[in-house]
């Protein structure tokens, strides 16, 4: 029963992928080709990374609204500096640092995550505007070729790296502790889990993921924009939810969130090829979100009833 909830992300992804395939083929008379897959891969990467970081935070029972600000700031810096490798390293470190600040405030300042990150969202967004008042900037072509090459699926390698990162993380003591903290913080503390350290780390990782997402973003779009991060706040949360990660913490998997992120991207395509009136488009996206989660809980409920 719980398995089903855990696999919600994969189920939703499978369903949307099927729908995508169907509407694409009916609409264009041929199945999607390598161009489509590559484009999906490259445009989804940033959201996949942000959702990955977001899911880590949500697994500990927190939430990170500041991803929007961190992405904006890191996009701004990457684009403003042209994204030379040295700068990329600096940007990723800065992202982790921004996240760490969140984590320290949440863990040691004992301020609720949603509030902390709401405040830092504003701070980081301001900083992004300061760095890059006008959209623009550039990225070193070599970096682009390595990160999100429009002709070669280099993104796959990075995606695999992200998946592997999660796989390893899940198998470290830290991974266990993430779930422990999300499951019951007081109890975790009682059995010796260094709750504060785990939290601080998780937010730092979220910041790091957001920074990586920012680098990919710039690599894909070849320029930056100080408001680039804003949409990631709600879409990363939506990915996490569709991915079956429980907001109460302790349940779900980052891979579910990754699947959720891809599913959310595919929904755009489904709506595109289904020819939805643009004015009504958000209606369908809203419905998709609710229905996906509803199906998940409904299926879990059914399974539980059958098991009982």
């Amino acid at each position, binding site marked *: 029963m*719980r398995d089903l909830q855990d696999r919600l992300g994969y189920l939703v992804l499978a369903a949307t992928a099927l729908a995508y395939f169907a509407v694409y083929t009916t609409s264009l008379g041929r199945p999607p080709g390598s161009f489509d897959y590559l484009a999906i891969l490259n445009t989804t990467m940033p959201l996949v990374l942000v959702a990955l970081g977001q899911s880590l935070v949500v697994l500990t029972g927190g939430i990170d609204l500041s991803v929007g600000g961190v992405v904006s700031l890191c996009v701004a810096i990457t684009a403003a500096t042209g994204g030379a490798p040295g700068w990329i390293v600096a940007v990723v470190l800065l992202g982790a640092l921004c996240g760490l600040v969140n984590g320290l405030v949440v863990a040691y300042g004992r301020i609720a995550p949603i509030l902390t990150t709401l405040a830092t969202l504003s701070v980081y967004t301001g900083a992004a505007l300061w760095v890059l008042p006008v959209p623009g900037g550039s990225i070193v072509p070599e970096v682009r070729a390595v990160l999100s090459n429009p002709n070669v699926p280099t993104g796959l390698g990075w995606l695999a790296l992200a998946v592997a990162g999660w796989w*390893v993380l*899940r*198998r*470290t*003591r830290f*991974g*266990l*502790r993430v*779930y*422990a903290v*999300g*499951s*019951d913080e*007081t*109890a*975790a503390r*009682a*059995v*010796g*889990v260094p709750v504060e350290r785990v939290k601080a780390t998780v937010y730092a990782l979220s910041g790091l993921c957001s920074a990586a997402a920012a680098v990919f973003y710039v690599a894909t779009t070849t320029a930056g924009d100080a408001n680039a991060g804003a949409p990631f706040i709600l879409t990363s949360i939506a990915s996490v939810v569709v991915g079956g990660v429980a907001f109460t*913490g*302790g*349940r779900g998997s980052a891979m579910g969130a990754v699947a959720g992120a891809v599913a959310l991207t595919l929904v755009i395509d489904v709506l595109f090829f289904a020819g939805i009136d643009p004015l009504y488009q958000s209606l369908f996206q809203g419905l998709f979100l609710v229905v996906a989660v509803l199906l998940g809980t409904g299926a879990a409920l059914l399974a539980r009833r059958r098991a*009982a």
Partner: protein
Amino acid sequence: MTVVATGVGRAFGGVQALRDASFAARPGEIHALAGENGAGKSTLIKVLCGAIRADTGTVTVEGRIATAFQELSLLPDLTVAENLLLAAPPRGRLGLVRRGRLADEAALVLSRYGATGVDPRSPARDLAVSQKQVVELVRVLAMEPDVVFLDEPTAALAEREVDWLAGHMRRLRDAGACVIFTSHRWREIERLADRVTVFRNGTDVATRERLTEEEAITLMTGRTLGATYPDISGIVPGENALTVSGLTSGRLREVSFELRRGEILGVGGLAGQGQRDLFLTLFGAGKPTAGGLSAGGSRARAVRQPRDAIRAGIAYVPEDRKAEGLLLHLSIRDNVALATLARRSRAGFIRQRAEKAAVSGIAAKLDIGAGRSTAQAAGTLSGGNQQKAVMARWLLTDADVFLLYDVTRGVDAATKHDIYHLIADLARDGKAILFYSSETEEIAGLCHRVLVLREGRIVSELRGPVGDAETIVAASIREPADA
């Protein structure tokens, strides 16, 4: 000396939990901490094991420490295996946790400590309370500590599991460890402890090798209590208050019985035989798949949720006061008045004065929080007083039927005594009472009649004052004649 505390003081907000408390325990002994609810036992343990800091005084503890806290510290979303091996999971190459091995390894640990019947793959939240306690204890035992603190380890355990734990405690002691535990069951202290330290109001009042129950209670409370169980033989059950027929729900199978006014009906049996389902279903908090109930006379109506049950004159006092009873950071008054809000309101507005009066009255009657203001948060009360606050809520409802589910768990001797008499008074007033306790002895001592449950069915009914726990236990394990 392995464990020494001298002159320890610790306050929570305005509450002085420990004041100038001293304590010492040596290797190779089982040392019990006794005292009323709120005497400071748990606080002392937390100070000793380093979970909280003392405000004043010094603490020395030598050796590896392991603690089972009073509030269970299992992680509900983790599996039993993950819970057990959180600190030292099996590792493979690169030092990564071998997730495939977790369950096997945990099974090994569980069987090494003789804890059977727990699936290591099951998430902790799906376990019955007693199973949770067992897992928690295995986690502590498996650390093979030099100093082990067990804060009310038996509160959720049935007799059999208590024996199991006793065995391990003795083994640890014999191996030279220092075992410190607390309990409100004098029998256990008597049976297990080499020495007892009694606490009162945050201070140690005595440390003895030999102590009778009466002496202990006098030390703990500063007064002497009368007979443990009130005499209920004079109470004559009257008309039917609750009729249950063919009730099937969760683990429960076709349970039928009648409960009369003035009757205290016990529910016995081993732990986890569906007692919890019975109580929850009768209160409308569980969905029956077959059968039903009718509550006395004109007030009878369909019970689909607790609200209906309350209207039909049924009250349910739960065992787990933190999860099911109290709203910890709301005031004592809000907590006590919660089930009877509508009664003291006009057009949806609360009649504040009436409410204050009613709550103060019942709080004084039950001696909740020793005269503390009812405006204080319920979370500041000690365990026993919290339980009394929950009782008070239901006494205000004037219900006809009281479902009392393990209401004395983790409650001190004096409070227990008060609660027993409260129950008898209720029966005398013509209330019908369904009573379950994880201490079978209480059922034996307090009830007119006992239903013994096994695998969700009533397997026997014991009439008349049963007197001793053994009869009930025997009925619980004996194969039914027709099986």
